[in-house]
């Protein structure tokens, strides 16, 4: 398996440049206004997958904000990740409806199956296991999201099968 980070050098540089251009376009669209920080961080994370320190620094300079402010905002919100995520993600909803229908058992099954804890990424970079507060799909609880695909009415058996399908699929 090829780690997502180890793409050929030239290829990665072109991709990075393209992302950089898209980020600049977003900054310009917001007229470099400091109050657009959260919007810009959303765009940056969408483009780069996570918010690396030099990326945050670049955003701070562009919006004329102190780096401490940008770092403070990026760490305050759960949605922003300062660490790279795995090639695949599996998110267990821990909302109340899912909780009373056994979401914590699902999570421990998945933790056991993957040998990583919630919030961690597997050492081979293939999978990040995460939890969510509530995904608003309470009518079909308990729910688990595999690579942006939400699945309802999960049980321990289904969830393991689905995990393996997700892991064997190509990188999204």
């Amino acid at each position, binding site marked *: 398996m090829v780690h997502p980070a180890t793409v050929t050098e030239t290829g990665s540089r072109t991709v990075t440049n393209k992302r950089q251009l898209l980020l600049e376009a977003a900054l310009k669209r917001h007229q470099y*206004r*400091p*109050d*657009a*920080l*959260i*919007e810009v*961080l*959303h765009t940056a994370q969408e483009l780069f997958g996570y918010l690396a320190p030099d990326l945050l620094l670049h955003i701070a300079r562009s919006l004329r904000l102190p780096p401490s*402010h940008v770092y*403070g*905002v990026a760490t*305050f*919100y*759960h*949605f*922003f990740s300062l660490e790279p995520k795995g090639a695949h993600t599996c998110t267990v909803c*821990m*909302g*109340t*409806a899912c*909780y*009373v*229908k056994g979401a914590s058992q699902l999570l421990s099954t998945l933790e056991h199956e993957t040998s990583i804890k919630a919030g961690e990424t597997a050492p081979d970079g293939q999978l990040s296991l995460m939890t*969510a*507060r*509530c*995904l*608003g*799909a*309470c*009518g*079909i*609880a308990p*729910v688990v999201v595999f690579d942006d*695909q*939400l*699945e*309802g009415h999960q049980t321990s058996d289904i969830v393991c099968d689905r995990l393996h399908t997700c892991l064997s699929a190509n990188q999204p």
Partner: protein
Amino acid sequence: MTVEDLHQLAMTARKACRLRCCTVGGCLSANSLVVKQRLEAAVTNAGLSDRIAVSGVGCMGLCSQGPLVQIDPSGDLFAKVTPDQADQIVAEIEGVKNREKGTGKPQNFSPSPSPLSPALPFFTRQYRIVLENSGLIDPEQIEDYIAVKGYEALHQSLREMQPEVVVDTITRSGLRGRGGAGYPTGLKWATVAKMPLGQKYVVCNADEGDPGAYMDRSVLESDPHRVLEGMAIAAYAIGANQGFIYVRGEYPLAISHLQTAIRQAKRHGLLGSQIFDSPFNFRVDLRIGAGAFVCGEETALMASIEGKRGIPRPRPPYPAESGLWGCPTLINNVETFANIAPIMRNGADWFAAIGTEHSKGTKVFSLTGKVKNAGLIEVPMGISLREIVADMGEGTPDGKQIKAVQTGGPSGGCVPAAAFDTPVDYESLKDLGSTMGSGGMIVMDEDTRMVDVAQFFMEFCMDESCGKCIPCRAGTVQLYQLLTKFKTNQATSADLEQLEMLCDVVKHTSLCGLGQTAPNPVLSTLRYFRSEYLAAIALSTPSPARK
């Protein structure tokens, strides 16, 4: 844009028959887009595309039975539809058609798609105001909304009413904020309207963070124009020209439907400059949340819109005086805004006649957890919990005893089965130690341990505490540790005393709503299920001396 143009738009070719397929929320996850595609293909294959339209619509309510497909005009409803059943469903319409025309005997179809009776109490006990279009119209087609009298209330307000009259109508309707606290909406509007002229803002709080509640998500996904119309009327009434919708990042479909709706409304001159040829201008921007529960608190929400950490500040000054960038700001919940257009259309008296003395109108609840019919319901205020849980929800799926219903999310409490005859309104639920909250209603059966539930919510509040004030930042951690002792049977009676004392401190000394209400789940379970805490103490194994 005039009212005639509106009607013209609404008259877009209507077909005699329509297949409505839910393409939002739970149904979407259950593959309903493929079902819709297969229905379209089946209609085309049968050569019926000139007579039958297939629409992707919003939530029909019974999310646990999705994907749902309904046929107009017969009203036949099908649950758990699979893509392979598409042909059979289209054949079913043909059967209806043949019967209507009297050509040939009614074909005795017994379609394998499982039919669902629209006469279920789940549907018949509802009173739909906020959700009146939900599941009927295509949320991505402004024409659909206009065809059901959409934007008429805005037209009427702008052309026939002074702003004060609009505020007065809302005040007389008795509408109260649907975000949880139940502050009278008319009073809030009047406060902002009275502020001196100048920049004012309207903010829609769509940061629906309560776990187990998804009413706002559904309204935004199923009928986004209604929220925009409500905001525009509010803006006219208070004299604002800019609105923001702060929506959770976890709701990508709601965001996309809102973006579409804003674009369409702008194109038709229903948002932007000189709406309906009046001097009124109003633009709406979206702000996407980034996963912080505390941002549902209004002062934290405003900080977040300004691009800062979502940290609350003391009130007063209230946002009505000094809100976004120091300007007077009106903040209402999604459901509150969704109630505005029907009130303006039907009059304050019509709305005030629904519900109880102090709680007017209806409330949308998401009925979930250990209940057979899980989904979204809208009921008149004053209905009893028993009617909701036992009649509409039809009890637990496996016949187990219902123990309690949790309302109000992490700020609410657990209402025991013994109190199920209480009418659902703001005051009665408060008396029971719970709150109306935004409308989550999670049913728990005999297997659910109340101590675990209290610990679950405390963990939530501990994680979501912003850290600004000590009672909440440190108090929730201590409470969580105490509750963990109860959960693992290591607690003593001294721990129980400390738990109660600490709940009191956190409740009365925290800065914002999050901390002030964080002890509620503990206090309500202590009040009704104290025996479970005592049992945990009795079972506790004397552990080595602790600090």
